[in-house]
């Protein structure tokens, strides 16, 4: 099965050119297409592939479903610490030998943990591909977890946690999540705490690999100068040795708490950092696309959003102000942030609440909706900037069950959003009185409604 991806910019869908500026259109021949192919290896490993012959390289991006939110209680940071060690020695190669081969072959290999997935990112020159693939297989199937490497990574993670412990942005985000999610795993920091990292053992790390790297949780995207014939056996080589299934459990569904509360964490800094937000919509919800378009207009749209215009452009209150949707598997958020002088926090929050309420009450204008759609459709191909970014897109499409032809259909989903849809979703979702607000700094005239929840550093 193949899907063609072209004509993202149908001229009819584009906004009229502004202010009488003449436009000259090149004879745009949409002859370029990104073709997504589904490849299944002889051993049954599936990958989505985009062939690209422009540069002699191969990029593989992959995810295992289940991330830091599935870490056992008391072992916060296990997924993250494990990923930090996968390229620190595997098979017969100790850390220095393994890293030496990666560097000598110019292989770009990295692993990291998110709340809901563990991700791998791999890019190699085709001339080194065979050995590079062997290194990737070893990292996933035979990581060594030598004591030297474990202790070194533990020291580095600990140093990073200490550094973050006084970073107002990190603190604001962590306190906000603690307030909203309470004891749910979504409140935990992905990279652990000083206490939890101290106690992670080699058995924990080995157990993580055995329980969490399984083929039924695996999603693979490949882009580069490679054919399905060559890719198939390569997939078996890398992933074929992993168990077919495992039984690790994930977190349960969660609703957001602490609606309407304002928390202040005192810190002696010249500018307060503010995080605000409440319940959002999930990716599979029928309200997702209307919410997505609505958020672009409210605070997602770079230099054109309402929040940007009202807070930064018009009043000069902040350098950075934004909102975004964060749909997760077991909960959903719409969240935003602003950083502003301590004596302007109250005013900035008042403006943001007003915009939140204005969108809830009246929705966007017809013009705003048209412009949002034009941007969201027209800018989509900009995300396909490199082999790695296209491969990440292929992984995201599979993760969210969007289908092989999603890149073709995406603009239909966006175009189908009506003004009434956005108004309905804004009214249902947005509520300025339900915003949970966390301020880190020394804000003036901001009254906390309750004591900020404690977090471990």
């Amino acid at each position, binding site marked *: 099965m193949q899907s063609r991806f072209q004509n*993202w*910019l149908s001229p009819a869908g*584009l906004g009229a*050119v*502004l*202010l*009488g*500026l003449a436009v*000259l*259109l*090149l004879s*745009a021949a*949409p002859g*370029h297409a*990104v073709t997504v192919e589904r490849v299944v290896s002889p051993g049954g490993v599936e990958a989505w592939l985009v062939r690209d012959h422009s*540069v002699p390289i191969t990029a593989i991006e992959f995810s295992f479903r289940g991330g830091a939110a599935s870490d056992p209680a008391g072992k916060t940071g296990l997924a993250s610490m494990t990923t930090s060690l996968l390229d620190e020695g595997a098979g017969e190669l100790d850390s*220095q030998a393994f*890293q*030496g081969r990666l*560097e*000598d072959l*110019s292989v770009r290999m990295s692993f990291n943990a998110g709340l809901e997935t563990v991700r791998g990112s791999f890019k190699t*020159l085709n001339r080194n591909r065979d050995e590079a693939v062997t290194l990737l297989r070893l990292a996933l199937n035979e990581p060594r977890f030598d004591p030297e490497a474990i202790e*070194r990574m533990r*020291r*580095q993670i600990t*140093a990073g946690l*200490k*550094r973050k*412990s*006084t970073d*107002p942005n990190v603190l604001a*985000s962590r306190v906000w*999540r603690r307030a909203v999610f309470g004891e749910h795993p979504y409140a935990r920091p992905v990279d652990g705490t000083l206490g939890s990292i101290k106690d992670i053992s080699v058995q924990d790390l080995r157990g993580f690999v055995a329980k969490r790297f399984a083929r039924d949780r695996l999603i693979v995207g490949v882009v580069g100068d490679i054919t399905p014939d060559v890719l198939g056996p390569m997939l078996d080589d890398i992933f074929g040795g992993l168990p077919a299934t495992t039984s690790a459990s994930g977190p349960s569904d969660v609703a957001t708490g602490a609606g309407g509360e304002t928390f202040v964490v005192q810190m*002696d*800094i*010249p*500018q307060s950092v503010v995080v605000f937000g409440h319940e959002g919509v999930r990716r599979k919800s029928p309200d997702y696309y209307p919410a997505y378009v609505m958020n672009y207009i409210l605070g*997602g749209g*770079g*230099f*054109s959003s309402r929040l*940007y215009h009202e807070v930064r*452009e018009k009043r*000069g209150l902040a*350098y*950075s102000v934004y909102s975004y949707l*964060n749909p997760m598997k077991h909960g959903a958020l719409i969240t935003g942030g602003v*950083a502003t002088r301590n004596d302007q926090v109250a005013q900035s929050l008042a403006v943001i609440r007003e915009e939140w309420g204005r969108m809830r009450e009246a929705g966007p204008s017809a013009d705003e909706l048209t*412009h949002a759609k*034009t*941007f969201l*459709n*027209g*800018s*989509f*191909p*900009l995300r396909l900037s*490199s082999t*790695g970014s296209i491969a990440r897109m292929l992984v995201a499409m599979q993760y969210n069950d969007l289908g092989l032809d999603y890149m073709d259909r995406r603009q239909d989903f966006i175009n189908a959003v009506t003004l009434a849809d956005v108004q309905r979703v804004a009214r249902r979702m947005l509520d300025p009185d339900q915003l949970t607000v966390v301020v880190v700094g020394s804000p003036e005239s901001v009254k906390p409604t309750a004591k900020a929840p404690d977090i471990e550093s």
Partner: protein
Amino acid sequence: MQRRALSRLLTVFLFLAGVPSVAGAAVFKPESFTLDNGMQVVVVTNHRVPVVTHMVWYKVGAMDEPPGKSGLAHYFEHLMFKGTEKLKPGAFSATVARNGGRENAFTSQDYTGYFQSVAVDRLPLMMEIEADRMTNLVLTDEIIEPERQVVIEERRSRTESDPSAILGEQLNTVLYQNYPYRIPIIGWRHEIENVTREDLLSFYRDWYRPNNAILVISGDITMKEVRPLAEKYYGVIPSRPLPKRVAWVEPPLKADRKVVLEHARVRQPTWSRRFVAPSQMYGETALADPLQVLGEILSGGATSRLYRKLVVEQKIAVSAGGWYNGRRRGPGVLGFYISPAPGNETEAVGAAMSAEIDLLVEKGVTDDEVAKAIQRLQDSAIYARDSYSTPARVLGGALAIGRTVADVESWPARIGAVTTEAVNKAIARVLKDRKSVTSLLLSKPTT
């Protein structure tokens, strides 16, 4: 939680992080010509997706500001997003967004750049509005005053709230005794507060000229298509004589300097040492390529000598490495850093790093280190072609400091020709018996 940053980037140092230092030979295969008004045009073709990155680079940066007007170049960059005679305030960004484009801008000591990434059939419109703001910008007090507050908030975010950024700013004031690099790009707050509308307009009139600008386009387009558009939109703007640039010269440091910041919010200390070095455009420029190979040898990969010895073997540090930045109009920098592992004093790990620097001067680097570093640097040039926007960034950054297209294209060959002797000679020139600036970022003991 992902943080979405609206970054009008302050320095290209950040902007190019993650991009191979420079890329190279017969790699980008750019086409280039110069308009009659002196504006250079460069095109790199990549047909993967029907998208282009359109950049205009001005060869003016923070170092060109008049005395007492620090922050002017960056503040002005913000104001380029306001209105012109044709486009009312906000309409520039709205036009880019309504045509599915993404945009931003950045200011460094050496140059200022503006860019949009957009579907290829929107390129003429981007060129039209970019050319428009090269000459027709309108600045009123109503426009500049709120933006001044935005810039001051940006300074609070980037510098004043971050102990390591505060220290970095202090460090530059003593690393450079005379060169304008000693002044922060974002400016001193009291000077941002005092920049006038007349200062901004005269900076604009002086430097925003086609003969001081470079047009770089990379993506799904060829020079054959770009040339008539460049002539139509940019070619009609008259050139004007540019102000004389000050030929700053940096005298050698005569004394070691030490900058110490004890800050209550520091939990993980850091030690660093910096040496002023030649760059691609300043001083003994023949040393720039060998120094780049040295930078790659030191740059902190798991098998690099500093990380291996100090982090892996001696276990006294959580990070350790060195770096070289020579992509500048003025002096370059060779730097070293180390951050202690728990139970180690910052001064002690600094002394260990200092001993490694002495060893580097005494023994030099090995043939094996040089050969491997050259291979990695040359391979990075292949990866640099992977993205449609990277070629524009790399070429623009090189041309804006005065390099040529040929310099960029011959880079892998030149790097390939660097010998161990050349690296060791560069080490001697930059490090042997040279004064330096040492910085310490320390926790403030609680009382």
